[in-house]
């Protein structure tokens, strides 16, 4: 992101010399020969030689200082990326820069700093729009996170469009954030929630989904990639079926936007939500993509400053989207840092990231399933079925909490245990909880190896006590 800043605002360069010198670091993998100019902590494998291609995991690790530490006496192996991702130095610098050099409230001021802040803020919006190929940056509404974005649609679009007897189709594998808001809204409006269950491959039953769609359906709200099953849904087809009956589609893209190319034109979804903190951006910011005509027709969600046009004592008129849905002072620094994250990811290339993760995912699945008594949830990978780079699993006779605790305490391996905000799914699968290891492009095969070794040790430790 700093490179773009340099081009657009030449005077800025003198204000933030530190930012620029560190910024050159993040571009090393797109121009590998220049990596010798790095001032950040190095790993010797960053310079690619023609004979030995360096994996994406190795080449990007140095951008993430947090990964280079010890926990509980062992090297940290961070495998909880589905919960949140780590942030590269470029993103942290962008945040720091904002506060250090041009912090000012946006959209309201006339003075130099506020103009700069506003420019950067709106630039971030454009970056996000471009990242998902929205047709206009006004189709991007910034929220606190994806959960808030879904609630926005539920309260704003849902309350004014759902009538008694209308149907909202979800799956049993949805994250709580894509179940609970609809429960609340359906109680208020009299709409009915219908749930698609899983088929024998442990993915949501697409045929069942198709059959469920009827003239009563007003909304289909589904995940793009499941944070537990690692499966993905054919959104394009689902949108076609939904639009045939006049229903809208909301896509929970939290686990897809960070890991692959997501093109809202291609998907043709009506709403799409994602969180910044899962895609190398800071927490406290997420976004809703909504088609222009839909957003224009929606009433406000939260009321306050920014989202109004004129305010009188007895009534107010509202601003156009996206401002209409962005009440109050936004998380300005975080938004700008999200823009930096988008730049960072684009610099690597989402296709490249995705290809690398497909490899890693296969490796993880193979290694994990080779251990005895391990039950992995979701579909088996194959030619047609690509799993996301995560595995939720259970080891027979071993509680996932015990597993995760031991992995952390004895081996420094960070995974998650619990229901992963998908209680209905776990109930459906017949378990209380599961363990989950989830990877991102800065993980390596060695990370997976460390995990497997640690897991085997953990299992044998607890086995010896049975």
């Amino acid at each position: 992101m700093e490179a773009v800043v340099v081009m657009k605002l030449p005077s800025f360069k003198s204000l933030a010399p530190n930012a620029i010198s560190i910024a050159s670091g993040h571009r090393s993998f797109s121009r590998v020969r220049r990596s010798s100019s790095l001032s950040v902590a190095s790993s010797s494998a960053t310079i690619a030689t023609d004979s030995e291609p360096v994996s994406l995991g190795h080449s990007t690790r140095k951008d993430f200082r947090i990964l280079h530490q010890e926990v509980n006496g062992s090297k940290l192996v961070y495998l909880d990326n589905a919960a949140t991702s780590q942030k590269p130095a470029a993103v942290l610098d962008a945040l720091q820069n904002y506060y250090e050099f041009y912090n000012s409230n946006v959209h309201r001021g006339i003075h130099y700093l506020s103009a700069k802040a506003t420019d950067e803020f709106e630039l971030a919006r454009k970056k996000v729009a471009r990242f998902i190929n929205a047709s206009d940056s006004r189709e991007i509404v910034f929220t606190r996170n994806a959960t808030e974005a879904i609630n926005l649609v539920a309260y704003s679009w849902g309350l004014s469009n759902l009538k008694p007897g209308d149907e909202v189709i979800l799956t049993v594998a949805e994250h709580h954030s894509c179940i609970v808001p609809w429960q609340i809204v359906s109680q208020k409006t009299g709409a009915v929630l219908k749930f698609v269950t899983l088929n024998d491959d442990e993915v949501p039953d697409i045929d069942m989904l198709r059959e469920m769609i009827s003239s009563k359906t007003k909304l289909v709200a589904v995940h793009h990639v499941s944070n537990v099953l690692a499966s993905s849904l054919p959104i394009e087809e689902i949108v076609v079926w939904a639009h045939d009956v006049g229903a809208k589609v909301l896509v929970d893209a939290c686990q897809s936007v960070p890991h692959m190319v997501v093109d809202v034109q291609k998907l043709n979804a009506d709403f799409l939500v994602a969180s910044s903190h899962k895609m190398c951006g800071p927490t406290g910011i997420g976004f809703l993509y909504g088609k222009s005509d839909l957003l224009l027709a929606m009433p406000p969600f939260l009321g306050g400053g920014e989202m109004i046009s004129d305010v009188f004592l007895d009534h107010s008129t509202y601003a156009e989207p996206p401002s209409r849905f962005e009440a109050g002072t936004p998380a300005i620094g975080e938004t700008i840092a999200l823009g930096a994250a988008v730049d960072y990811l684009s610099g690597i290339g989402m296709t490249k990231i995705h290809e690398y993760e497909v490899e890693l995912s296969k490796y993880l699945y193979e290694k994990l399933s080779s251990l005895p008594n391990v039950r992995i949830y979701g579909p088996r990978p194959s030619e047609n079925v690509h799993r996301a780079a995560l595995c939720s699993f259970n080891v027979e006779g071993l509680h996932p909490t015990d597993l995760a605790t031991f992995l952390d305490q004895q081996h420094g391996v960070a995974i998650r245990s619990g229901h992963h905000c998908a209680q209905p799914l776990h109930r459906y699968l017949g378990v209380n909880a599961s363990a989950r290891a989830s990877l991102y492009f800065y993980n390596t095969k060695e990370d997976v190896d460390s995990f497997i070794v640690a897991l085997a040790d953990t299992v044998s430790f607890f086995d010896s006590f049975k």
Partner: protein
Amino acid sequence: MAAAMSSSCCVSSLRLVPFKQSMISSVHYPVKPLISPPILSFRRTIVTFQKISTRITRPPSASSSPSSSGDFEPIEDLPPKLQEIIKLFQSVQDPRAKYEQLLFYGKNLKPLDSQFKTRENKVQGCVSQVWVRAFFDEERNVVYEADSDSVLTKGLAALLVQGLSGSPVPEILRVTPDFALLLGLQQSLSASRNNGFLNMLKLMQKKALLLEVKSEEDTSSGEVSESSFETTPETVDEASVLEGDSDSKPSLVEDLEAEKIEEVDTGSDVVALGSRGMRIREKLEKELSPVELEVEDVSSQHAGHASVRGTDGETHFNLRIVSDAFQGKSSVKRHRMIHDLLQEELQSGLHALSIVAKTPSEV
């Protein structure tokens, strides 16, 4: 216990490891006295107990030992069995061996009967399932039983059960969670949602308090004798106003009331029957000439689910019939008889019957 420990642990000589002060300072969590108002009444009644230490007048959160930080309860104040356990853990250096010790405790924990795995006994906020049960022994010390589906949590529960069982209520209430640091297990001990250990301790303290309060109420009103405490705490908890579980409370309380009334007068009506209940009674009396007949309207227990919506109650009944008419008939035939007799009701809103049908000789 010590002998059993040495057989499983690799440490043959006991070493007391000085506890690192730095560990305390890095962890800070609020230490609130669990109770404030009732404590005065404890002080009065406590005087009669023999086991209470003379240091009881000190408030729970104070500490006089200069070496510990402000919030920290000195080890000497902890129940003696807990002190033993702490010293044992401190003597084991290797973290892995500590875990082994923990698991060993868990393995030897007396299993908890499934009837006690109720919502009131469940530790909230745990990803694994943990249940704790508490009752008084003859000397009014608290005895605990616990279980968990996670072996580490079970080990921790076992520690607490062993460490706290047999102690009187005030001693238990004085225990602050800091002592867990002394174990050196490095379990996450922050007051976070998923911290099972902290929640377990809190639940155990809460149950101890409830036992004390309930026993004070009973001794003052003279209703229930102390010897019955072993079996009643569960029902006490379920009906107790102090429990916050409002969802399941009404039906449980009704159950208790219904049961009590039934014990008193087995032949007559249990709850005032509405018109359908009366009709059922009449029909059955007329057609079956029963020796015993009980018709109980339990519709309110089913008020939640869909079949009841849109009716005006009187949808679920428990029937207990003792009659010669059942002689020579299989259970299925008996139930069918009753269903046939009550056809009209079943078609006009009666949703379900729970039937006990016996002949006089079978009773």
